[in-house]
């Protein structure tokens, strides 16, 4: 029942709006995973990023998509928490430091073992459009624990101008996702993270999206 609501929301509400108003286009769709487990990483400038990433996948994969979202933002407000859990199936992640006693990535690991496709914004928060922030190391820890899981970088364009941080009303502009080649754990967290940042900057450079 819960899955039905999520699927209906994306199929009936999100997709028509994205494709109709924002001309949602996916470049190199063939590079996307067709089965889980996998990790999608993307640049983050807008609340529309997650629904847009969902719209890259066929409807049959919607139930295994699991965006990783900050619990201090998404679970502190009842409406926001309902939307995040029921309509997007988020895995909450604690950003605070005193959560040391428990493994903060346990939820993500369990989901990957269950065959989910995780959606992670490694910049950690919505940044200014046209600037790529430094990546947090969480995705590196996950890749180290699950070295066979592919990590696929996706660069999103224009969504940050359609609905930036603090804006309430979206402006229709043409948005697109540019899917990069999958990457696997390199055996060393430093080189792995540098590789991911480089891959994302490379995608952005191809599109000419960075200032």
């Amino acid at each position, binding site marked *: 029942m819960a899955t039905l609501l999520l699927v209906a929301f994306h199929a009936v509400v999100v997709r028509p709006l994205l494709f109709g108003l924002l001309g949602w*286009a996916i470049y190199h769709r063939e590079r996307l995973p067709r089965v889980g487990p996998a990790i999608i990483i993307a640049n983050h400038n807008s609340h529309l990023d997650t629904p847009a990433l969902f719209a890259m996948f066929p409807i049959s994969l919607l139930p295994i998509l699991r965006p990783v979202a900050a619990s201090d933002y998404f679970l502190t407000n009842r409406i926001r928490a309902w939307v995040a859990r029921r309509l997007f199936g988020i895995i909450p992640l604690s950003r605070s430091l005193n959560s040391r006693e428990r493994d903060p990535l346990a939820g993500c690991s369990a989901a990957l073992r269950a065959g989910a496709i995780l959606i992670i914004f490694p910049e950690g928060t919505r940044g200014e459009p046209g600037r790529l922030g430094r990546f947090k190391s969480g995705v590196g820890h996950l890749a180290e624990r699950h070295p066979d899981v592919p990590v696929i970088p996706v660069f999103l364009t224009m969504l940050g*101008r359609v609905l930036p941080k603090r804006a309430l*009303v979206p*402006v*229709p*502009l*043409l948005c697109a996702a540019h899917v990069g080649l999958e990457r696997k754990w390199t055996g060393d967290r430093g080189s792995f993270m540098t590789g991911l940042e480089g891959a994302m900057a490379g995608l952005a450079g191809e599109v000419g999206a960075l200032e």
Partner: protein
Amino acid sequence: MIPATLTAGLATALAGILGLLLVASATLGTVIASHRMLGVPRWTATPPAVAELALRIRSWWIMAGAFAASLVLGRAASLLFLAVVSFLVLREYQTLVPVRAADRPCLFLVYCAVPLQYFLIGFGHGEAGPLALMIVLAAVSGVLALDGPPEGFLRSASTMMWGVLVAVVALGHLALLLAPARTGIGAVGGPALLLYLVFVVQLGDVAQYLAGKSFGCRRPVPLVSPNKTGAGFVGGLAATISASAALAPLLTPFGHGEAVLVGLALGALGCLGDLTVSALKRDLGVKDTGRLLPGHGGALDRVDSLVFAAPFFYYYLTAVH
């Protein structure tokens, strides 16, 4: 039941377009079939030029079908179709142009020009061009002046207003043709004139593309559009003149000599619009304005030749007829 808007001339012209598209598809089918016979096994192995042509023709079927349906369905449907075209062009333009973060509220105001313009035209206010433009000019300038930093004011304001001029005011002249009281050409009918204008100009565009691809080596505008050739320009003019001569008796009040002259003017102005959008794309560093129409590029790529031709045609009609 035959709709009242479907006059004999209009029906004949639409049948002619259907025939042209059938010929295009049949020719393409023959080319692909002959490739197969020469031992090229699969569709994927057809040369890229043929594959692109196939996409272009398929897009033409969809565009011509939607346009013809809107003409047959009556004035409200035609206005809606043209308003959607203006919106699509404006969205491509606003996606491509550089704007500051502070300009975001104005992107919104610019879109408001579309319903404003088309409602004014729809309710019979022929002066809608200047009125809608003045309202948007005041709103955009006012918001930019009061809300944004002054650095870059002129660039942002003029960037946005150029988009409104091209996508809404200039292309809005297509819709003005549907207000017969204004043009004094009610006897012939707005839909017929609209079809004549769009057909002549678009055929010129296609002919220029085909003639330019087939022959010609002189490149008169290498900086703006290196693929344009002198032969393409001449071929385009020949096509607009012949199309105008053939269609004028069906769809317009023009005599023979006049049809040739109007065809010539539409061909030249169509080319000018094409070159203007080429210059815009070169400035912005893109090949196409979008990817709405597979094989063609964006909506602006398709209607660029109407940007100056439509106002010319409207004012020519109101002044002379």
